[in-house]
């Protein structure tokens, strides 16, 4: 299953907190796509995902100050 979380306009650490809450509700193997525009999230979200043991399947910049990251729950 794949789910998209739109957190554009939110400032850090809220994109990260929303992503953490969301992934807690999901099942192992599910993918969460987070779309965010908070610059500091480019550091905090992948760092959290890696340390929590989830797999980042995609991470790219879409536009000026706009990013997407796909996290597969472990």
């Amino acid at each position: 299953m794949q789910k998209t979380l739109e957190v554009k306009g939110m400032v850090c650490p809220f994109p990260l907190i929303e992503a953490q809450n969301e992934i807690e509700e999901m099942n192992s193997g599910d993918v969460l796509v987070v779309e965010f525009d908070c610059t500091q999230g480019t550091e905090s979200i992948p760092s959290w995902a890696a340390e929590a043991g989830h797999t980042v399947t995609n991470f790219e910049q879409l536009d000026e100050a706009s990013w997407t990251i796909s996290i597969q729950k472990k």
Partner: protein
Amino acid sequence: MSYMIITGLLCGALLGFVMQRGRFCLTGGFRDMYIAKNNRMFYALLIAIAVQSVGVFLLIDLGVFEYSAGSLPILSVIIGSFIFGIGIILAGGCATGTWYRAGEGLIGSWIALAGYMLMSTMMKSGVFAPFNQQAQASAVFPTNSIAETFGINHWVIILPFVAIVGFIVYKQLTKPKVVVPSLKPKRTGLAHILFEKRWHPFVTATLVGIIALIAWPLSAATGRVFGLGITTPSANILQYLTTGDQGNLNWGVFLVLGIFAGSFIAAKASKEFRFRMPDVKTGINSFIGGNLMGVGASLAGGCSIGNGLVMTAMMTWQGWIGLVFMILGTWTASYFVFVRPRQKAKAAKLKEQVTPA
């Protein structure tokens, strides 16, 4: 005058650039010690303190400039730092963080900055100045320098501190590495390193420490014997703009303007600049946070840079006590802003599952 403008702007621009690209956010760092049990950014701050401390005391020993830490208004440092810590959580960034985020185009940071500049000015030369002076004059200890209090040479404190920081860095770097996924590279060479690559927090911290060190002789040459500082210069800008008195212009004013410019350049070149409007709640929080930052930093005689990075490196009580209470302030605010809402949401959900519909 032109020397002051050029070196101030340059030093600030370097700092703004490095902080923006390195995501050097002290607010986030203090907050994550509590909500994520992650001390990486705090260790990074210690590295920046250590680099600056060794450099500045070498310069002082060589006679490049003289520095006296003065006295310690302990009560206003404690209360002010705590208020400042609460403010930076609400504003979503410390004083420097707010300046560099403003350069990224975040309107919320512009709002915070407006509140911060206004309140610092009111505390330093406006209606609250008598209150501020009274607070500064109560509970004052005669010596601020830790070495002076114990009657020892400053290196007796600096060298063990550097050894501890070195040990922490060694432990951190030899830990089993978690690979942090990075963005798909779209550029090569220097452009990739400067405008795209993820900077390791410790590398960023070392650069911040070096810039904080360079700031001392550059600023001292204009008669302002101090390093990086944000609060007083931010107030000076508003004082100059509203009175037209050129006496308010100093090296620090150009430093903070440089931070804004440097961050804008870094963000623009990295395709990270965009005007972003916050929602109403974030906007209000930013304004309240900015005002609390102004009150707190004025009382404490420094923000997370002035006290947390510079006065700590000078091995003063003000720096280290200020840093501790600033961190406690961010933890207190983090509990109410991040931790409690989460616990409440969880409890509500649990109740929903337990109670049969």
